[in-house]
Every structure is written in C-alpha cells, then in structure tokens.
C-alpha cells in the first residue's frame, strides 16, 4: 500500500507505519489481516445488490404514495376547501418526508448512473438552491397545454420544489414584479392558489418518478447495466474509489453546506449565520434529512449484515477505526434525535456576538448538551469527516476527492 502524504494529522503517520508493519511482519499477522485475502468484489456486489439498487427501488415505491391516482397528493388536491383538507395535508406532508428521507440515504452513493439525474431530484448543494419564483412561475405556466416540467431548470424541480409547494404557508408568490406570469397571482383566491400548487406538486412528483426510474434502469441488468461495469474485475479499484469519493458527501455537503454554512462556520456564508440557506426551510426537517444522510453513510460503511467498508478495514487490521466511525456517527445521530426544535429555528437563535462565540466553542468542542446544537453537530460531523480524510483513505488506499481537500471552515 501507499501511505498518503497529503493527510492532515500527524497521527496518520503512525497509522501508515502500523499498516506497513502489518503488511511486512507476516509472522505476526493472521490471514484476515492480509490485504489480498479480502474479497473486494464480494463487497461491491453486496453494496450494489443490497444497498444501492434496492434504495432506488424503495424510493420509487415510496414515491407511489404521492403520485398514485389515489395517492396523497391527489387526495389532498381533492380535499382542498373541504373539512378534510388539513388532515390530507398532514398526510401528504408526512409522505413527502418519507420520500425525502429515503432519497437522502442515497446521496451517499451518487455514482455515475445517478450523478446527472440527481440534480433533477435533489438540486441542493453549495451552488444550487431552490428558485421559489421559478416554481411560482412554472405552476402558472403548467395550467397551459404545452407545459413540460422536464424543460424547467433543475433548481425549480425535485424534492425541494415539492417541499415548497406542500409546506409553504404563504400563498403569495415570490417573484420580482418583472415576472409577467405571477403579476396577478396574489389577487387570486386562496383555494385557487392552493389548488394550482397542489396540481403542480403532482406534476413535480411524477417528474421525480421519471428521473428516478431512469436512474434505476441505468443500474439494472435489464437496463443500461451499470452494475456490470461496477463489478467488472477490471474496474474494482475504480469502483471502490467511486464509492469512497461518494462518502465525502458527508464532508462537502452535509458538514459544510447543510450545517457549516447555515451556522456561519463555512466560508460560503458571509454573515454571522445564514439560516435562510437551510436545506429544508419550509418543512423544517433539516435534522431528519441529515440523519438520513448518516444512515446512508452507515449503510455503505457497514454493508448491512454482509461485506462493507468496515470489513475491508478490519481485514487490514484496523477494527478500532471501525469502532471510532460507528461511535462518532452514533453520537451525531443521538444529538439529532434529542432535538425538539428545528435546526433553522436553533440557528436563528445565534443572534449576537456572544452566541456566535458560543457556537464556535460548541463546534470546536462538541458535547451532548451544547448551547447551540447545530454547531455541536458541525463539530461531530467534522470528527467523522476528519477520520474519513485520514485513516479511511489511507487504509482503503484511495485519495481524497479534490472537492474535499480544503475545509473552507
């Protein structure tokens, strides 16, 4: 193996040394620590067949709860203006959350078959945010005959657009006055505006179905069969690297953008805090979505009950690294589980110099009962991603993806 020299901590030097020893002092090492003994193909096969491909199937199935003719969106549309409106709205919002959480798990395995389609499903990263005006405009245009959701920009589609349509309590549009389509929107009745939003929500959900179906087919043997490419013995190293790179979503998006930017600990926030850039501003389910990301991380890391990265790492004699990963992720998830107030509201409470300093302290020294939980969560996530950047890439023998090579925080 090669010891990566661009790692950040001195500790890794010791790790490299111990890996070398484990590889060189054969008499001291049992056969399970022999890198050649680990079946990489079996791990990839397990991850493809037990984690990745089923995740898209599950997502599609869950989408049905929204899109079916008797699904919750249509039911809500039908109930607008009736006594049952509130109940059906609650149901459709609950279904949205279930769908969104399933997708958030898949964010940890954004591989080739999905990467281009992913933007149409969950267009959220450092450079992409929902265009609410675009949704407002589109839902009016959607009343016309020649409208196609798929022709709209990706920042007007996907799960964020669906969240906006189903959760935003204000019925007014969000466009500047220059947008002609929305100019008379605010004069329309509440029931009409709710109805149009609901009808458009159904179109968005169906568009999600189309994109996800394509992503699924890209993997399937009967489809474009990326599975075969993924498991091709010639591509094992590439596939492991691709999976490893995908795990860094936890670093570059979850830690930096979903949490770090919002609490003002990332360079992309130029104010003390940026609560307006929270991932889930209307449903206020950011914590739930981040928890799903962590579940997705564990799914790839542990491979369910079969072979995953933890087995690969253990095979090289570093079971204690697995223990640290599992413990750190569990700590972060426990912190999330203990929150009863949304991340957005908690960040809005960081509203003076003293609070900003307390946030920085919570991030630097995260604890189970911090003053500002989002800041502590950033700290916990950093502990996980620091381990990814050092021990993980060294043991798995991959490089840091370029996007994760600087912290910006």
């Amino acid at each position, binding site marked *: 193996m090669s010891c990566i020299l661009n790692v950040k901590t001195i500790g890794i030097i010791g790790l490299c040394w111990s890996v070398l020893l484990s590889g060189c002092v054969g008499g001291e090492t049992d056969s399970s620590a022999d890198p050649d003994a680990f079946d990489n193909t079996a791990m990839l096969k397990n991850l493809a067949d037990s984690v990745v491909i089923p995740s898209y199937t599950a997502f599609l199935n869950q989408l049905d709860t929204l899109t079916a003719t008797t699904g919750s969106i249509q039911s809500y549309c039908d109930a607008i203006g009736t006594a049952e409106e509130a109940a059906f709205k609650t149901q459709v919002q609950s279904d949205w959350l279930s769908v969104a959480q399933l997708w958030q798990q898949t964010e940890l395995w954004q591989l080739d078959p999905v990467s281009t389609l992913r933007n149409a499903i969950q267009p959220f990263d450092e450079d992409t945010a929902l*265009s609410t005006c*675009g949704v407002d405009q589109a839902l009016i245009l959607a009343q016309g005959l020649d409208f196609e959701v798929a022709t709209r920009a990706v920042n007007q589609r996907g799960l964020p657009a669906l969240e906006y349509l189903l959760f935003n309590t204000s019925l007014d549009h969000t466009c*500047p006055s*220059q947008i*002609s389509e929305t100019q008379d929107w605010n004069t329309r009745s509440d029931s009409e505006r709710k109805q149009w939003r609901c009808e458009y929500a159904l179109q968005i959900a169906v568009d999600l179905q189309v994109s996800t179906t394509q992503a699924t087919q890209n993997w399937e043997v009967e489809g474009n069969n990326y599975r075969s490419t993924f498991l091709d013995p010639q591509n094992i190293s590439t596939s492991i690297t691709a999976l490893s790179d995908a795990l860094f979503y936890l670093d570059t998006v979850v830690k930096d953008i979903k949490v770090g930017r919002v609490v003002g600990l990332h360079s992309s926030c*130029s104010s003390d805090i940026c609560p307006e850039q929270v991932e889930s501003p209307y449903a206020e389910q950011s914590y739930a979505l981040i928890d799903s990301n962590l579940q997705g991380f564990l799914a790839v890391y542990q491979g369910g009950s079969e072979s995953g990265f933890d087995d690969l790492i253990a095979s090289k004699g570093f079971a204690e690294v697995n223990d640290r990963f599992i413990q750190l992720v569990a700590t972060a998830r426990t912190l999330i589980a203990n929150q009863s107030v949304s991340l957005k509201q908690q960040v809005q409470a960081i509203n003076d110099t003293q609070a900003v300093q307390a946030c920085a302290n919570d991030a630097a020294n995260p604890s189970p009962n911090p003053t500002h939980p989002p800041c502590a969560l950033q700290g916990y996530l950093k502990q996980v991603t620091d381990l990814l950047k050092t021990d993980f890439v060294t043991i798995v023998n991959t490089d840091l993806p370029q996007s994760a090579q600087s912290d910006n925080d």
Partner: protein
Amino acid sequence: MNLRNMFFFFLLIFGLAACGGSSNNDDATAQNTTSSDDQDGDGIVDGSDNCPSTANADQKDSDSNGEGDACDAIPTQYSFDSKFTAGESAVSYTGQTKRHVMIDKLTDLLVSFTSDQAVAAQTIIDQLNFFFRFDGGTSDSQNHEFAITGQTVTPGPLWSDISTGKSLSGKIAGEDQEAHILGGEFFGWQDGADTNPTPIELVDWFFTQLATEVTNGTAPTVVTADTSDTDQLTDLSYIDAVGRDYRQLIQKFLMGAVTFSQGTADYFKTNFQTDNVQDGTNPYTSGGHDWDEAFGYFGAARDYNDYTDNEIRGNSGRPEYENGYHDLNGDGLIDVRSEFNFGNSTNCAKRDAGATVATDFTAQAFNAFLIGRKILNDNADGTLSDAELSAVQAQAKIAAQTWEKCIAATVVHYINDVISDMSNFTNGQFADIANFKNLAKHWAEMKGFALGLQFNPESPFRTGEVANIDIDDLKQILSLMGDAPVLADGTQNGVAFTGGTAQYEVDLLSARSLLQTAYAFDAQNVENW
C-alpha cells in the same frame, strides 16, 4: 538604436561606399536604389521591405507578423471571419451584451424611483435583483424591453433572444473567481462593510440602502439659501440625506466590478498561446472568444472607429450616428450586439471630446482590440508563436490601460464637477435643491467609477511602471473621497468633517493630482475635463 535604425545605418554605409557620394546626402539610399531592388519605390529594398508591392516607407506592421500594414491591413471594424466554418463570423460576445443591457435596464429601474414607493423594501430589492442576480430559468422568457426611440431593436423581444442565462452577480469580482479581488483585498468603502468586504456585499449594501430610502416614506431635508425653493427632496428618492445618489453608485460600480474587471482581470489574462484552438465545434477559438468577451465588456460597436466622439456619446453628429448607435448592416434594425455603444466605451469618447490637449482614447483602445483579435484570428490554428503571443499580450495591455484611462479621466471629470458644485455653497447652505442633487450625482459618479480602478491587473497602481505610484495611492484617493460627500454644512455622512468643505476640496484636488501622475494626464486636461 533599434533594429530598424541599424538597418538604415548599414544601408547608408553601403550606399556611401558604392556611390562615393557625399555623407551630407541623407536621402542617398532611397534615391540611388534601382527600380528592380525596390519595386514600390518606397526606399526599402524588396528583400527587406515588409510590403514590397506597396509603398510604405514607415514599414508599419501593427500585428508584428512580418507583413506590413500596407499589404496586410488591420481591419477598421471588429469583424473577423471564421477559420473553421465558411461564411460565419468568428466574433461572438452575446453574454457581454446581455450584461450591458441588464445594467442599462437596472439603471432605468433606479431612475424610475422619482418618489417613495408604497411597497416593502424587499420588493424593491427583488426588483433590483431581477437584473443583478438574473435567473435565466425564470427571466429569460420575459421581454428585455431595451428600447431606442424611433428604432427597432434586435434581437428580441425576449432576454433569451440576446443570450440565455447569464447574470451580473455571477461575474462580479470575487464571485466568478476569488482571485479577481486583486491582491486579496477589496477596498475603498467602509460604511456597512465587515472585516473582509467583497464587491458583491457592497452591491447588496447599496441595494438595501436604496430600498430603505425608496420606501421609508420620508424625503431628505436640504437646507438651502434659496427661500423660494423647497427644502424637501421629493422628486428623486434614490438620493439619501447625506448626499449619496445610489442610482449612480450602483450603475458605475457595476461597470467597474463586473465589466471592467471581467475584461481586464479575466479575459485579457487568458493563456492565448495554448487556448487559440477551436472551441468545440464553434466557429472561433477559445482564445479568440475570450478576446471577444473582453471587447464585449468594453462595449464598443463593431464600427466604433467610424464614429466621431460626439456621435459615440450620443451628443451630435451625422444623423445615422448621432445617438450612439448606427445601423451598420443597413437592415433597418439596431442590433445591440454590434451596432450600439455601451458602457465604458462611451466614457472614452466623452473624455476625448472634453480634452483641451487632444487625446484619442477611443482609437487607442479600439485599435488595440482590432490588432490583438487579428493576430488571434490569423493564427486560429493553435500555433501562436512566442512573438505572436507577445504581440497579443502587448495589445491586451494597451487596451486594458487605455480602458482604465477612460475611467480615470472620468473620475477626474467628476472631481471637477464636485468641486464646482461645492463652489455654489452659500454660507454653509446649498444654493438650492438642484445644487444638492448635482453634488449627490457627481459625487456618486466620481466614487462609483473610482472604486472600479482597483480591478485591472495592468493598472498603473499595480504594475509599478509609474515612479512613486502604487496601490496605496489608489487607496488614498478613495479614502480622500470618503463614503459620502462633504455637504454644505461641513458634515460628511452625518459627522462634522475636519476642516469643512475647504479641506474636502483640498483633499479632492490631492486625489486628482495622484490620478494625473498615475496616468500621465496632461495638466490642462485634468484642469478642464
């Protein structure tokens, strides 16, 4: 002695030796050259003549390709044929045109705020961001509404007809590339700034200030000496009580932080040697296209050299040119992509027209654009030699520095206007409400343009080419101007200014003097611009 002089020197010695003529006969070489040696009779023997068929005693070779201009003319218009697609133009910069139109339409919106608006401040900010943070996904389908009285504008009517996507915010210094905040420091404005200010933050601050001013339901009170005049500024709601005209500040700052920055710090810094290869299947090279984009940000019409200065500025002239545009292709439409003068290209003409001692910023800048583009197009096969690369870079530098002179001379012009406005103060009061409005306007133009001087890597404040001038001098200039004018009552931004208006005038003259030195401006021009 340069090479050409050495050539003449040896030719002279040879001529003297051959003819035994007098050393007083300076024309000996030319007169004694036989027609077979010098077919065009320009005094340069054919073997050494860079254009043997046409007389060109000056041997001028603007594009440094070894062929004289007399045989290899520099185009007079910014028009270059594709080397890859027969019958197509190699020139394209529609995105830059679209951004000029955005700035123009944003300015129209600002000008429309003649009275307080009964809407929330955020509504105003959203309207401004329609242009600044232009979202092609929602707005390309809207009419751009760029109109010229009595003319039909093309392309249109939609924004997407000019170009799809594009925004101003995405191209402001620092947002496109962090490195375009040159030296890692954006400076020159303190009010509202944090410890690490950026140009986009200043624009947002301007927007917020303006939106507050436009929606707060109150008009600034201005104490004037004219008892017949109202003391309430009720007809221009984009000016605040301390004399800042946000319509001017926003427009002029965007010209610097977006168009000037992009042209000089981004596109002129392309690696033209490696990038002069075809851009995909487009009819141009990547390098040529980058050059076009710099030209597009400068804003000149393709036949800019055919206009008089007064025509470019839309002041007077031949009927077909007099309003700053010209139907070059005679199709009865005014094409904003090629037939209209935008942005800083008009400032060059204004300063040339206003020069006491003649300047020709318009021709200097435009010719540099022409020559550089010709070299790139002539060599649109990816084989730019070191000499050709040097020639392109030299022209880029001329264009960038002349472009900056146009801006700097405009700053001088507005310093003079501010000082003139201040001379109308009477006993600590404005002469009248117009006096206040003029001061606010002129000060904002001065400051808005001056902030832009920091975005050019070839600025004399950055190159070290001018003795005793460096970036601290530009910081000093901006500091002397302050974040608001000194008003008739001797206050600046609500605080008594030490030394009052007299000291502020001294400060502005000091700033003007630094500009004069940095750009080697003629003293009479500086006095009179």
